[in-house]
């Protein structure tokens, strides 16, 4: 693995997998951990609210981060003749698409 050649592959794959995993984690609530702000307590995986609300955002970030890191590192070992075809534009088209998906998913806030 050549680090200088692998980094663009890592960066593009990381951006894509992060965005996709994040939106799936939010939609399906795949949080790696839960934070209960009223109690100032953390819990592993998804927990129901105890006293006050439960916060999953940090857990979604952790889920996306681990998945993106793993995918990015695996992509670094893919042969160069394959990764040469990887379009740099995926690093912005997929995140942009995910932002639009969030706009659609949250439209209820603006239409009622």
């Amino acid at each position, binding site marked *: 693995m050549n680090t200088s050649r692998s*980094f*663009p592959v890592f960066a593009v794959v990381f951006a894509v997998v992060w965005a996709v995993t994040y939106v799936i984690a939010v939609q399906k609530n795949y949080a790696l951990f839960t934070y209960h702000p009223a109690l100032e307590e953390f819990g592993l995986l998804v927990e129901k609210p105890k006293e006050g609300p439960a916060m999953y955002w940090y857990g*979604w970030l952790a889920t996306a981060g681990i998945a993106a890191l793993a995918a990015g590192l695996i992509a670094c070992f893919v042969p160069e003749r394959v990764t040469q075809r990887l379009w*740099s*534009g995926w690093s*912005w088209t997929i995140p942009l698409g995910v932002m639009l998906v969030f706009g659609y998913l949250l439209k209820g806030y603006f239409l009622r």
Partner: protein
Amino acid sequence: MIVALLIIHALLAVTLLGAITHQTISVWLPMRKTAGSFVGRMRSVPAGSYVNAIIVLYLITAILGGIIYPEYRLSIRVVLQQLRLNVPNGLFELKEHFVAVGLGMLPAYWYFWRQPLANDYARTRAVLTAILAFIVWWSFLVGHILNNIRGFEV
């Protein structure tokens, strides 16, 4: 303590906003000649010199936002829901997701701005910068609107 962190968060956001706005303008509307006017000088800044500062500011501002976020969930969001202020509530929901998506783009943003700049990546560089600028502007304005609604609650 929360008020102090909120002010620091806002100040960092202003700095980030300035840096990324300068970079975005200089990428999308570059100035070829020596600039004389205020706008012209803004267009002619060396865009690449902002990259590391933008990444550091983005990360620190997001971390600080994450630290004060529980207070928002406990004290502000409940009030917004009780007052049926759905639009500001939705704007903030979008903010948290946009910021999260932006975090994932930072390694690519850093790489495609690495010196010497590759011409092959000019469009990728410009669009990544524009998307991050949009996220930063959205986050700043939404944070400002929500703060105006609820105030510091001192």
